[in-house]
C-alpha cells in the first residue's frame, strides 16, 4: 500500500474529459428519447387485443429483456453489417443496443402503468363519446404516466449507466477517455477513480430525486 496518489495527470487534459462527457451526454440523450418512445409503442402493442400486434411486441420484449445488453451492442456492431450494404458506426451500434434494450424494459413499465388504471376510467371516457385512441391519449395515459414516473426515472438512470458499454466498441465517452488517460499516463488507479466519481456525482442526485418523487406520489395517491 505504498502507492502515492497523484491526480495531476487526470486533470492535465480537461479537453479529454470534456469530450468524453459530451459523448456520454449525447448517447444518453439519444437512447433516452428512442428508448422511451419505442417503449411506449411496444407497451401499447402488448396491450393490444390483435394477435399480429401483440405477439411480435411480446417476442421483442422477451428477447431484449432476456439477453445481455453488451451482447446486443456487439451483435449490432459486428454481426449486423454483414447483412447491410453500409458500415455501422460505434455510436449507431451502441445506441441501437441500448435503445432497444431500454424500449423492452420501459415497454413493460408502460404496460403495467396502463393496466393499473381501473376499467371505470375507460368506460367513463367511452360513455362521453371518446374513441379508444382518444380515451388512451386524454384519460388513461396522463394518469398512468404519473404512476410510472419513478420507474421511468429509474430507467433513465440505468440508461446513463449503460452508456459506458459504448466504450466496448470504442465510442468516445467518459469511460473510453478514462482508458485513454490511463494508458497514456500509466495512472489507472486515479483515472478510473475519477471516472467512477464523476458518474457518482452526476447520478447520486438523480437517484435521491427519484426517492423523493416516489414518496411524494405515494402520499398523493
Amino acid at each position, binding site marked *: 500500500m505504498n502507492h502515492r496518489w497523484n491526480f495531476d495527470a487526470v486533470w492535465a487534459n480537461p479537453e479529454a474529459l470534456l469530450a468524453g462527457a459530451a459523448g456520454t451526454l449525447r448517447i444518453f440523450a439519444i437512447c433516452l428519447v428512442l428508448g422511451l418512445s419505442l417503449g411506449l409503442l411496444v407497451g401499447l402493442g402488448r396491450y393490444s387485443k390483435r394477435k399480429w400486434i401483440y405477439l411480435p411486441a411480446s417476442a421483442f420484449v422477451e428477447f431484449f*429483456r432476456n439477453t*445481455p445488453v453488451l451482447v446486443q451492442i456487439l451483435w449490432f456492431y459486428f*454481426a449486423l453489417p454483414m447483412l447491410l450494404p453500409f458500415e455501422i458506426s460505434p455510436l449507431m451500434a451502441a445506441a441501437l443496443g441500448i435503445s432497444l434494450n431500454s424500449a423492452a424494459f420501459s415497454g413493460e413499465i408502460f404496460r403495467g402503468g396502463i393496466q393499473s388504471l381501473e376499467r371505470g376510467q375507460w368506460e367513463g371516457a367511452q360513455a362521453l363519446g371518446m374513441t379508444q385512441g382518444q380515451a388512451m391519449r386524454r384519460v388513461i395515459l396522463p394518469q398512468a404516466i404519473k404512476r410510472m414516473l419513478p420507474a421511468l426515472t429509474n430507467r433513465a438512470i440505468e440508461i446513463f449507466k449503460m452508456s459506458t458499454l459504448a466504450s466496448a466498441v470504442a465510442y468516445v465517452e467518459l469511460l473510453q477517455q478514462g482508458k485513454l488517460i490511463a494508458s497514456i499516463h500509466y495512472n489507472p488507479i486515479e483515472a478510473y477513480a475519477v471516472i467512477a466519481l464523476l458518474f*457518482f456525482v452526476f447520478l447520486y442526485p438523480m437517484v435521491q430525486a427519484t426517492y423523493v418523487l416516489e414518496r411524494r406520489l405515494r402520499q398523493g395517491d
Partner: protein
Amino acid sequence: MYQWDFAPVLANSGMLAAGLVNTLKLTATALAFGVPLGLGLALLRLSRFRLLSLPAGFVVEFFRTTPPLVQLFWFFFALPILISVEMTPFVAAAITFSIQSSAFFAEVFRAGIVSIDRGQSEAARALGMSGAQAMRRVVLPQAVKRMIPAFMERSIELMKTTTLVATVSYADLLFQANELAQKTFRPLEVFTVTALIYFVVIYAASLVVHRVERRLATSGETTVH
C-alpha cells in the same frame, strides 16, 4: 444476398460451451460471496448506530449508482497495482461482481427485513430473545421467503452483467464468441448463436422466477421488490 453458414460455428461449439461454463462459474462465485456480503451490509445499514449505518449506506449507494463497467476497470487495472498483488482475470472479475451484486442484494435483504411487522421482533424480545436471536430465528426466516423472487431476479441481472468481463479478456461466453468470430470470419452466425444461447439460459431462469412468484402469491405470501 448474404449466404448464412452455421457449419464453422457448429464445428467450434466446444469454444462456446467452454465460455458458457466460465460464465456460469463466475456467476456462481459472485453469488456465493455477494449474498452473505449483502446480508452483512443490510444488517449494518439497519443498525441504530450511525457509525455503522452511514458507511454501509454509502457503500451500497456508491456501487448501485456507478456503472458496473467502470467498477470492473478499476478493480481490474487499478486494484492489483494499489495492493501490489497479481490477479487473474477470474479473481478480479469475481471480486468486482461479488461487491457489486452485494450492494443490490443488501437492498433486497433490507426491503425484506423492514417488511416484517414490528410485532414479530417485539414478541421475540418478549420471549427473552436477544436482538440478534430475534433477527436470526424470527425475522430473517420470514423475510427470506418474501425476498425469493427479487433475489432470483437479481441473480439473473448478475448473470447478464458478467458479460462485461469479455472487455477485460476473461474467457466467458461473450469473449469466446468474439474470438470465434475473428477466427471463422463469421460474426453474424457466431454472435447470433451466442445471443440465442444467452436467451435460452436467461429466459428459462425467468420462467422459473415467474412460477415461484405465482406459487408464493397463491400461498398468500407477499413479496418484496
